[in-house]
């Protein structure tokens, strides 16, 4: 049958520090299909970033397996672009050079690299800023640049770790719309970590609500609200409060522990 784009299969992750070991992720399994937008939602410290980092290939699960297109994920790859909460831009490179960074490792002619970098800068609306350095950009622009950089080498999967977490509410909503617009133009399979319920409901096809330490799947919720979604509609509010309730139980567990 159809292999899923990403398969997370009974993954468990234990970190040990000074002879003290703690289980961060336990018995986590999910299949993500092509061009699906999946949001990982959970209280802080539930291991959602850890899970994303394992999908990226930064480290391996203690047990279980993560695979992409049927191949086991063992190290970072250009097939999986990552957008970090702290942007992680190269401060010594201009916007254009940041976006070309990944293209320079593929044997492409210089002209093609430049063209493709410009196309992606244009996609995020930063073409007129191509000569600026990251320090000269606002928070929202920095994150757009980071998205352009991640998209430039044409990965089929985009992993986003609370990418809009450090932005103000206004910019955040604009960026969510931007992301959906980009996703429509260049369809990607997206795994999106967030702790904001409304962000997850606004963006995702499916929301994975996680339990607090160790992180396991509490519930998987399909968001069937047609797009474009209205943040102020009744269905939106209902689903949000339903998820909010599930999440609150988990947050309580953390504070009582």
């Amino acid at each position: 049958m159809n292999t899923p784009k990403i398969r997370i299969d009974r993954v468990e992750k234990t970190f040990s520090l000074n002879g003290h070991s703690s289980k961060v992720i336990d018995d986590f399994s999910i299949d993500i299909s092509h061009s699906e937008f999946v949001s990982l939602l959970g209280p802080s410290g539930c291991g959602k970033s850890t899970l994303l980092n394992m999908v990226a290939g930064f480290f391996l699960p203690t047990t279980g397996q993560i695979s992409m297109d049927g191949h086991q994920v063992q190290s970072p790859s250009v097939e999986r672009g990552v957008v970090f909460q702290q942007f992680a831009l190269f401060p010594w490179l201009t916007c254009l050079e940041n976006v070309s960074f990944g293209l320079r490792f593929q044997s492409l002619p210089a002209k093609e690299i430049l063209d493709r970098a410009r196309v992606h800068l244009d996609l995020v609306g930063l073409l007129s800023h191509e000569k600026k350095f990251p320090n000269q950009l606002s928070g929202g622009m920095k994150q757009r640049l980071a998205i352009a950089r991640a998209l430039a080498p044409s990965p089929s999967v985009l992993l986003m770790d609370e990418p809009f977490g450090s932005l103000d509410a206004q910019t955040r909503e604009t960026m969510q719309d931007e992301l959906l617009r980009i996703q429509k133009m260049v369809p990607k399979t997206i795994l999106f970590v967030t702790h904001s319920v409304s962000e997850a409901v606004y963006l995702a096809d499916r929301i994975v609500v996680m339990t607090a330490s160790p992180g396991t799947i509490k519930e998987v919720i399909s968001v069937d609200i047609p797009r474009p979604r209205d943040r102020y509609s009744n269905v939106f509010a209902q689903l949000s409060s339903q998820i909010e309730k599930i999440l609150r139980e988990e947050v309580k567990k953390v504070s009582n522990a």
Partner: protein
Amino acid sequence: MLSHKTVRWIPLILLLLMWAFFSRVNQTFHLFNPILLPSPTDVFVELWNLFKTGKLVDHIQASLIRVILGFLLGAGLGLFSGLLAGAFRPVQDMVEPIVELLRPIPPLALLPMMVLWFGIAETSKVIFIGYTSFFPVFITTMEGIKNVDPLLIRAALTLGASRKDLFWKVMIPASFPQIITGLRLSIGLSFFVIVAAEFVAADRGLGFLINDGRNFFLMPQMMGAAIVIGILGYSINTLVKKMERRLLQWREDQ
């Protein structure tokens, strides 16, 4: 209103005037031996004479060549070994203890030994400057490479960078600010210690001028040489800072 540039000159001129005034008072009333405090004009006349005969340029050249050769040697080795130690943990484990043991020893303490080992000619002076300028570059480079933001490395890995790309295209540029700081410290230190190196068996150089002045009680020559060293050091520092600002314009905000 006076501009910033004008204001900066005022204290300097006042200082010169005060110096001229005290030396004149002393010459008139003999508070102490007037030879010990020549007037600024005496010093500048002495410098002008040295310049006219071409001797001053000769001495400056001698000092500069020693500083530059020594700096290139020391900073080059410091950069190379700092990069290696920063990138490879085993290299750091082997090199760091030696460096940490040698570093607290003032380089001047080793100068007499170097003279015995490498002779009284140029070699010992260049090696001495090289030794002195090695440490700041080595340490800032190693720390710079070691402290590269791990997030940048992760980002580069997801963009397809190989180990080699990581080193050349992420770690080196990311630690550029630290490396440049190390280079600036080194060149400053080189100027600090060159004078002492030229006290020992030299017949040219600004340090020699000072030492020679002491032997023959030539106060204006000693003061003049010291002033020239000050101006040289200041100019080089300004030059390096300008280069730094150009190279690191990405660090400036807005």
